């Protein structure tokens, strides 16, 4: 089984000419040479395994790093930011001594190969990032994108993904409070399964991934290590390098949410007793990542005995153990006198825990196997000194033609009947239809703190029972807008998420993102990426919401064809008292409906252009961040002072989509009129940004409109909450029953 002799550091030094399969492990020639240069000798197999996974695109961000720096460089001054980019997840101060951590990550490719497990382990991974910060996870969100709704493969992928997200999150006891479901043929072979999580802790409980204090013990706990996701490493394990055993080394991992639930509880109990000096979850690159990051972020070195790692498969080689991506594992650094207590807590929760090493006073990471030293590296070179690429990028030559293909010139409805038919067509289209068939598979209630969940504009969680302090989160992205203009598209994603948070009454504080793009080796894709990052960084600076962390997913493409550039943005907000939250649903008949913001002829990338004309071209709606900020301030003040009793932001589908949703949810209709200066079509379908529709009790009308007037926010009365139909005066009437059928039947018909 094992190669003889063991490829120790000593052996490597003595046998400089042994050829290692660096290319098979995904390293480039110059990268391998750099490893040799760093070490001053050829790497051992185990060292090569570590460098190759840690220097992969996924772990090192080598293509994206040069761009992502802008998030730090342009970061707005924010008193709320406690921990910024670089840690497992960012941490934000939300007041009263509470801190909140949140992050979004992708699990795109695994979810295509094995939808249930791919999506499930995506949730598992992001939740471990949250625990690793010291927080109790309190909610998850799941922005999703699939191929065409009527494509047969969507019927394989979507139900599996949704069941996997539900299966894992529900079993962990995390309410799912938001997300997105978007269908577009561009995601056919590359569905996007992004998952986000939020956690709450007290300021003093923030933990970081670092190994400090000579003599402190390194404890691996959670699931046993198996041969999961180690593809390339099996080459190192084989007798000769071409005698690989790939069939035994699965690329897809199976999650065990029950094990993760135990991991959460025992970790939190250990935090509570202040037993933990440093902590790291095991995600991509498994132990390679955890040991090298813990060691490089700490003050000393680390020594690890790999023989002590509990295995599920006794045939694993040391290289494979280092690379294994087995789920539901964590690594903690614990002072020697606290080890017994730590192990006792793990035992209480039936979690396997093993001391596998200790912090040393040197600055080396040394790993032993069968008595031989198989790794001896400076951990920084593994964790932080990976390659950085300045990939070439160029605005694609088709971009001008795409933008010139103006959606505002598409044929518009010419009669009231046609207008009415298009309303029905819009609200029943897969992207605009109700997603309740999906979201009802998620537990919204568990933990007993859910204030708002689907289909509200943002999810909201109470974090303090006594004061009512709460946090809100929304995730948004629009690949169609981003395709037309990636810079503006990223800003529109942020604008929408920001607006969604404010619409529910919460003040936006900070941002996480998940950047889903095609191959960075394509200069056009790289340009989209660079533009999107620049756009997001600029907009975050202007709105004062720092990016606290996120994730990049590249190579989402089939052959030469990339997905639409899809930056997904999550905005976290805070609300002093959740009793003041504003729901989407119309609450009472007779309330006046006001449209806030400016409505222009903006149909580029719109839902209307997609649904009615199957068209994508022109320019996306204009970005106006100062307007977004003003709108948010008004929505927050109005909620705090009780001036509105429902609100809904306007985004894809425009005003009519928002009104129909509020009406169906509240089971109350609306009578609308076309205000002066607008035509019915533009009123209903325009996707101008920076808008919301609010319901104002008559007693508050003056106070509310005065406030908008004084602050310079356009406010237009467009109707009243009334009856059991949605009527546009002089144009059409649609009963709630008709609308409900149109809006709610689509997704079950496609998927159930």
């Amino acid at each position, binding site marked *: 089984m094992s190669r003889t002799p063991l490829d120790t550091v000593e052996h490597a030094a003595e046998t400089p000419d042994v050829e290692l399969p660096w290319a098979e492990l995904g390293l480039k020639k110059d990268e391998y040479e750099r490893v040799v240069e760093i070490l001053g000798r050829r790497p051992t197999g185990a060292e090569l395994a570590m460098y190759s996974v840690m220097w992969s695109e996924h772990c090192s961000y080598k293509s994206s790093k040069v761009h992502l720096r802008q998030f730090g460089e342009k970061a707005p001054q924010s008193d709320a930011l406690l921990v910024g980019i670089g840690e497992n997840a960012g941490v934000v101060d939300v007041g009263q001594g509470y801190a909140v951590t949140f992050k979004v990550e992708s699990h795109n490719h695994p979810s295509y190969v094995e939808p249930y497990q791919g999506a499930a382990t995506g949730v598992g991974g992001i939740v471990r990032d949250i625990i690793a910060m010291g927080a109790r996870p309190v909610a998850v969100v799941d922005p999703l994108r699939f191929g065409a709704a009527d494509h047969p493969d969507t019927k394989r992928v979507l139900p599996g993904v949704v*069941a996997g997200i*539900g*299966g894992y999150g*529900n*079993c*962990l*006891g995390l309410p799912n409070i938001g997300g997105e479901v978007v269908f577009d043929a561009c995601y056919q072979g590359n569905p996007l399964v992004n998952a986000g999580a939020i956690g709450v802790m007290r300021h003093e409980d923030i933990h970081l991934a670092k190994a400090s204090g000579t003599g402190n013990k390194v404890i691996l706990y959670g699931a046993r290590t198996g041969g999961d996701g180690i593809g390339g490493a099996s080459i190192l394990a084989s007798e000769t390098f071409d005698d690989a055993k790939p069939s035994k080394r699965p690329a897809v991992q199976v999650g*065990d*949410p*029950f*094990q993760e*639930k*135990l991991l959460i509880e025992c970790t939190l109990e250990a935090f509570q007793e202040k037993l933990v000096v440093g902590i790291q979850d095991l995600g991509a690159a498994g132990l390679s990542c955890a040991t090298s990051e813990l060691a490089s972020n700490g003050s000393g070195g680390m020594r690890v005995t790999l023989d002590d790692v509990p295995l599920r498969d006794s045939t694993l080689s040391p290289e494979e153990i280092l690379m294994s991506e087995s789920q539901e594992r964590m690594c903690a650094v614990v002072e020697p006198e606290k080890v017994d207590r730590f192990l006792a807590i793990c035992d209480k*929760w*039936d979690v396997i825990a093993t001391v596998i090493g200790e912090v040393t006073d040197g600055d080396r990471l040394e790993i032993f196997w069968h008595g031989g030293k198989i790794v001896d590296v400076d951990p920084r070179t593994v964790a932080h000194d990976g390659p950085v690429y300045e990939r070439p990028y160029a605005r694609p030559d088709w971009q001008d033609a795409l933008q010139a293909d103006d959606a505002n010139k598409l044929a518009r409805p010419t009669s009231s009947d046609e207008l009415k038919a298009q309303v029905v067509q819009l609200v029943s289209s897969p992207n605009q239809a109700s997603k309740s068939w999906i979201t*009802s*598979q*998620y*537990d*919204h*209630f*568990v*933990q*007993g*703190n*859910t*204030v708002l969940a689907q289909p509200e504009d943002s999810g909201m969680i*109470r974090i303090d*029972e006594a004061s009512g302090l709460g946090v809100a989160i929304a995730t948004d992205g629009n690949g169609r807008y981003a395709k037309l203009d990636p810079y503006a598209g990223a800003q529109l994603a942020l604008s929408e998420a920001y607006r969604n948070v404010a619409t529910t009454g919460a003040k936006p504080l900070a941002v996480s993102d998940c950047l889903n793009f095609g191959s960075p080796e394509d200069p056009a894709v790289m340009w989209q990426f660079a533009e999107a990052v620049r756009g997001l960084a600029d907009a975050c600076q202007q709105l004062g919401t720092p990016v606290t962390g996120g994730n990049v997913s590249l190579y989402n493409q089939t052959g030469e064809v990339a997905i639409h550039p899809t930056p997904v943005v999550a905005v976290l907000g805070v609300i002093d008292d*959740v*009793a003041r*939250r504003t729901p989407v649903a119309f609450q009472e008949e007779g309330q006046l409906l006001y449209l806030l913001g400016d409505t222009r002829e903006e149909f580029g990338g719109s839902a209307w252009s997609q649904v009615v004309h199957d068209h994508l071209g022109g320019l996306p709606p204009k970005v106006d961040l100062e307007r977004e900020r003003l709108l948010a301030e008004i929505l927050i003040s109005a909620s705090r002072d009780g001036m509105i009793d429902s609100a809904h932001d306007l985004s894809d589908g425009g005003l009519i989509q928002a009104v129909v949703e509020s009406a169906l949810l509240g089971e109350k209709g609306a009578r609308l009129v076309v205000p002066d200066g607008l035509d019915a079509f533009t009123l209903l379908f325009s996707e101008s940004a920076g808008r919301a529709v609010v319901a104002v009790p008559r007693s508050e009308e003056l106070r509310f409109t005065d406030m908008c007037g004084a602050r310079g926010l356009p406010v237009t009365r467009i109707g009243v909450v009334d009856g059991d139909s949605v009527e546009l005066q002089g144009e059409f009437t649609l009963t709630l029953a008709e609308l409900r059928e149109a809006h709610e039947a689509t997704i079950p018909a496609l998927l*159930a």
Partner: protein
Amino acid sequence: MTARIGVVTFPGSLDDRDTQRAIRLAGAEPVALWHKDKDLKQVDAVVLPGGFSYGDYLRAGAISRFSPVMESVIEQAKSGMPVLGICNGFQILTEAHLLPGAMLGNNHLHFICRDQKLRVENADTAWTADYTAGQEIHIPLKNMDGRYVADEHTLDELEAEGRVVFRYVDFNPNGSLRDIAGITNAAGNVVGLMPHPEHAVEPLIGSGRTDGLPFFTSILKKLVNA
């Protein structure tokens, strides 16, 4: 004096804290019980909360049913101590044969989470006295294995003895036979149901209704007046 109501935490229990909160809001004293301890800490009643104990592996409730705490719960239940099983707790009670029948996967094969309308069929149990028979309430429902099944004879017997405590109204969310949402044992001290009353105890939270609070006030009154 107030009543002490135990809430068992099994590995994988999820709604144990929420249930403790509901008990507190009703004015009773929640007492945390641990699955590995036989000791019931002299509580006056026990709630087996919702969740996925042992991941619902094998069958929902099948593994928990053999935990040390259940030995005591089974013994006490048989001698009359009030026991409420919510969702996973209900599944544990059927697996432990404290309640007849069994819980199977929802007939539509999906997890389902919704605000569910129920009719209170029996307002005489230890846990439902603060309702009136025939009352219709809304309680959140969330489960994967909520389909109640039993043989015809058992079902007839349950009906005849008034031991169907809750029935789904307007919509059967899981294919439960005879729309059964909750049942009781012959003595009326052991009640199990799939929906989650502990998630309907505060006006702002969850479903935004408080239709679940009477569970906890019912038992409190019964114990305090006993």
